[in-house]
């Protein structure tokens, strides 16, 4: 037992030396999360503002003026008048001068005083369908405001009170800080482990280790230990930035978060090990690890897009993405102050995943060595 421990520590030391020997990679490993967090933090805002709206007003009356004022007064739109030829309207979109065009008919002023509802035409550049939908919703809001204004006595029979829990200002940082934590940990763990082991294979140094009296299990443990340390440090860095720069509140237990994060790190490392057992070059291992971690974690975990809105098949695939469970855990602990009991299901699933991945990786690793 004593020997095993010593040997694991020796391998871990060798790995640490490898890492320190290459300060550039180390710096990148630590700077990348910071930059990613800051960029996401300041850039990730799906709310659109200052939409350029071109107005073509054929009516030029009192009512149409008021309507245009209403658009100008809203913070969503930046209004300007278009006085070119009507056939060239599309140029506004092609040159990206406008995202939407409001066309008010000649008879608008007359009609609105008599008809039930008088239409105005709005053409939206819906190349980006999300932006298109948002712009349409804004238009509906502005028009509703306008209708309120010109009919002061219009009743509002029903009131709605909304109670937004945990995040009353609907800040996106509450959402993406845990998300980035999940993403970075899985990427760093899976990428690093998969590459370090294939590296020894590719360079032929694995054989040198094999002729030494070290057992496969000890090699793996020794190689993986330093990365657990690095990962926890990075996790800490992300959390500190989240809490101090983006004011994310921390409502749960630090100890619980540390334990469950370690569990997630182990799952991710096992994934990396698993990948390293069936790849022979670093290039392949890297591409594989990248595709197995980056895209699924960003898109199939609920990091940005809610899983329940996806097609059935993707929802099923999302069950094998570890980050899906970890996100519930992190968000639950940090933002809702959940206890272990409330997070039992995702915790158990992550544990099972680690066990399955690890036993498989060991088995295949042995087979690999015997060849």
């Amino acid at each position: 037992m004593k020997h095993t421990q010593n040997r694991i520590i020796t391998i871990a030391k060798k790995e640490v030396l490898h890492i320190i020997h290459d300060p550039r990679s180390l710096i990148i490993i630590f700077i990348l999360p910071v930059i990613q967090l800051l960029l996401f933090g300041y850039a990730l805002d799906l709310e659109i503002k200052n939409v350029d709206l071109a107005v073509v007003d054929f009516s030029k009356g009192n009512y149409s003026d008021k309507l245009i004022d209403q658009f100008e007064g809203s913070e969503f739109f930046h209004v300007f008048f278009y006085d070119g030829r009507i056939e060239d309207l599309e140029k506004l979109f092609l040159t990206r001068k406008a995202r939407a065009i409001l066309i008010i008919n000649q008879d608008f002023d007359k009609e609105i005083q008599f008809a039930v509802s008088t239409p105005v035409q709005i053409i939206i550049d819906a190349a980006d369908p999300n932006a298109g939908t948002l712009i349409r919703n804004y238009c509906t809001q502005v028009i509703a405001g306008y209708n309120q204004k010109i009919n002061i006595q219009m009743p509002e029979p029903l009131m709605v009170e909304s109670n937004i829990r945990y995040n009353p200002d609907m800040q996106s940082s509450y959402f993406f800080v845990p998300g980035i934590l999940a993403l970075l940990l899985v990427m760093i763990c899976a990428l690093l482990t998969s590459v370090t082991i294939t590296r020894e294979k590719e360079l032929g140094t694995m054989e040198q280790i094999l002729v030494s009296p070290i057992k496969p299990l000890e090699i793996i443990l020794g190689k993986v230990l330093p990365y657990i340390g690095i990962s926890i440090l990075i996790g800490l860095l992300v959390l500190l930035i989240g809490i101090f720069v983006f004011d994310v509140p921390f409502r749960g237990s630090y100890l619980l978060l540390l334990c469950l994060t370690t569990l997630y790190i182990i799952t991710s490392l096992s994934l990396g090990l698993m990948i390293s057992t069936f790849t022979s070059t670093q290039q392949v291992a890297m591409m594989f690890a990248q595709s197995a971690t980056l895209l699924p974690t960003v898109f199939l975990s609920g990091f940005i897009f809610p899983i329940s809105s996806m097609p059935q098949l993707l929802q099923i695939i999302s069950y094998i993405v570890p980050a899906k469970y970890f996100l519930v855990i992190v968000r639950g602990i940090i933002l809702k102050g959940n206890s272990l009991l409330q997070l039992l299901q995702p915790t158990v699933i992550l544990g099972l995943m680690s066990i399955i991945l690890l036993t498989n990786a060991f088995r295949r690793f042995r087979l690999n060595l015997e060849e």
Partner: protein
Amino acid sequence: MRQILFMMNKEFKQIFRTREMVAIIFFLPIIQMAILGFAITNEVKNIKLLISDHDKSFESRKLILGFRYSERFQLIGYENSNSSITEAIHNWSSQMGLVIPKDFGKDLYRNLNPEVQIIIDGIDGNTAGIALGYAQGIINRFTLDHLNRPMDMKAVYAFQSAGIEERMWYNLNLNSAQYMVPGLVVVLLTVISMMLSAMSLVREKEIGTLEQLIVTPLRKYQLLLGKLFPFLILTFVEMVIIINAAKIIFSIEFVGSQPLLATLASLYLFTTLGLGIFISTITSTQQQAMFLAWFFMVFMLLMSGFLIPIENMPAFLQKITYLNPMRYFIYITRDIFQKGSNVQYLKIDILPMTIYGILIFWGSVLKFHKRID
């Protein structure tokens, strides 16, 4: 010329020798595209809804019916108290609660403005906002129905109102794949050309075969061309596969000119291949190269408008995006795909992209020395 061909031949053999690599280059992008095309949507569906109806009148049931028939919401049950709804939200079993007060129906007719409460899990601020919007829409329709009930018909006719007739150009069905796939084409082009070329050059260094290449009579430019051309060809093959697969899987349209896109893509590839060479000159192991390539990738991706619209960013970040060659190519590809734009409209993007490409490529080639330190 013959030397370059030999070199290319060697490269191709090296790429295709690794079976897994071939799979990664050709199948992974298609799988990724399929996932992305379906997963990226800002539509929110199946919001888990709990209802607490303290009124149980005809009116309250009518309001509930509006929520039940919407595919946005998935009614998972009824609760008796607010606290059980907040508890369900706390335990992740529900996302939203609708509380209808006692005497809701009666108050509605007595014009007492009853108040409906919506409790929502705000952790995902974006989804919460969209869900609130949907709920508001359903409630508005209910209100309108209430106002329009036969006995009050006169009242409604007394109001003047404007309505909207909307036209959604370029993407009638609001298909998000139509928008995401062009962006994805750019991302994949970047990954393959930059990462693979960087790693393949460094690999020769790490394994020691670069020395063997250096002692051959190949000149520097022959060595680089022979290295890069195969990746250029692969990238183009990849592009054709992805675009056609996207057409089949998502039935998206390609409005513009394909030769134009191909020409501009080759201009863009100067940038990515240049970065690939640059990375390989300043690193000595594949791991380092991988991290540096990552560093560039993440920065380029986030600042390109691929996921986060540039117009939504704060002003100083918007300025930074002008430094990003990928930004221009994303605009170009999307416009050619969806709007069928021609050079006249795209020149504002083509010009900076080309300048960046030439500068980066030239600088990197100068920095690449055919010797070993």
